[in-house]
C-alpha cells in the first residue's frame, strides 16, 4: 500500500486521494482538495491526529482505499488514533473541501454530498465537529498541524484562514 508522501521538510506528509495519514506533534499533514473532503480528527491532550482525503460519500459496501469513502474513512481513522493511544472520547473534528468545481458545470458535482456524508458519519461516531470550511467553487490547500490541531486553509485569491 502506498503511504502518504513525506516531504523534505521531514515533519510534513502529503495525503493523496483516498489516503489517510496519522501524525503527532510536530508533524503536519497536508492535502489539496476540490470536491473531496479533508477530514482531520485530533486528540488535543495527546497531540495526535489523522487527516483523511475523502473522495466519495458512501462505499455502499464496495472495496477501495480506506480513506476513499466517508463511511470507511472515519472508522479507519478512529482505529489509527487508537493505535497511537488516542481513544475516541475527547477527539475533535475539522473538515474542509467539498467544492463544486467548474462553477456547477462539467463532471459529476459531488462536493455537497461529500460534506453531508462526512458530517453524518461524524455524528454517528459521536465525534464533535469544531471547524468547517466547505463549499464554494474553488480548490483548497489544507495543512493540519498536529502540534495544536489547527487546520490552515488556503484558497486562490484569498488570505489563509485557520480553523
Amino acid at each position, binding site marked *: 500500500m502506498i503511504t502518504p508522501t513525506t516531504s523534505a521538510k521531514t515533519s510534513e506528509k502529503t495525503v*493523496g486521494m483516498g489516503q489517510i495519514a496519522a501524525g503527532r506533534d510536530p508533524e503536519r499533514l497536508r492535502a*489539496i482538495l476540490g470536491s473531496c473532503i479533508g477530514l482531520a480528527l485530533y486528540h488535543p491532550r495527546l497531540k495526535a491526529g489523522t487527516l483523511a482525503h475523502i*473522495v466519495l460519500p458512501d462505499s455502499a459496501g464496495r472495496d477501495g482505499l480506506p480513506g*476513499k469513502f466517508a463511511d470507511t474513512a472515519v472508522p479507519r481513522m478512529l482505529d489509527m488514533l487508537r493505535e497511537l493511544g488516542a481513544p475516541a472520547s475527547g477527539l475533535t473534528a475539522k473538515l474542509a473541501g467539498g467544492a463544486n468545481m467548474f462553477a456547477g*458545470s*462539467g463532471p459529476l458535482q459531488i462536493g455537497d454530498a461529500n460534506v453531508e456524508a462526512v458530517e453524518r458519519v461524524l455524528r454517528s461516531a459521536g465525534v464533535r465537529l469544531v471547524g468547517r470550511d466547505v463549499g464554494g467553487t474553488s480548490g483548497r490547500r489544507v495543512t493540519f498541524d498536529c502540534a495544536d490541531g489547527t487546520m490552515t486553509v488556503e484558497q486562490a485569491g484569498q488570505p489563509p484562514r485557520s480553523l
Partner: protein
Amino acid sequence: MTKTYDDRTLALLHELFASATHDASAAMCRWTDGLITVTLDEVRRVPMEEVAAALGIGDELLTMVVLSLQGELGGSLILLFDEPNGRQLAASLLGRRIGADPEWSELEKSAIAETGNILGCAYVNALTRLIGADLLPSAPCFLQDYGVSVLEQAVIAQAMFSDTLLVCQIGFHRQDEDLDWQVVFVPTVEMQRAVEQSFRAAV
C-alpha cells in the same frame, strides 16, 4: 508474450487518442501560426492516490482551461500552465508583449480559453469520426486554481468505480522545444468500456 486484457485496452486507447491528438495538433498549429504542436505522451492507469504526482502536478496554483466533452463516450480536458507560460502563450496569441499588470486581462483570459476551445473541438471532431461518439464540447472555463483540485473533479466519475484511474497526457512543443504546458484528458468510464468491448469482440 501474450498481452493482458488491460495491456490491449491501453494500446487501443493509445491508438485512439494518438489519432485524435494528431488532429488536435493540426488545429493547434493553425491557431498559433505554425508555432505550437501537441503529441500524445502517454495513456496509462495510475493509482488514485498517485495521479497528481504521476502527471507532474504539484501543489501550486496553475492557470488552466477546463472543458467537458459531453456525451456518453466523452471525458474532461484540462489544459494546464504555470503562470509565466500562460502569460507567454496569451501574449503570443495576441501579438503583443507580456502585460506588466499581474492581473490577467479579459482579453488574455479569452485568448487562453479559446486555445482550450480549439483543442476541445478538435478532439470532439476526431473522436466523433473515429468511434462514432456523439459529443458536444462545453464552453471552456478559465481557472486559476490548484491543479490537483481541478484534476480531482475530473477523475471523480472514474473514482466511483475504481481505485486506479486512466488518464491521457499530452505534451506541447514549439519547434524542437518541449514546453512546460500539458493537456490531460480523462475519459469517461463509458469510453473505456466501449474500447474494452471492441477488444472483446475482436479476440
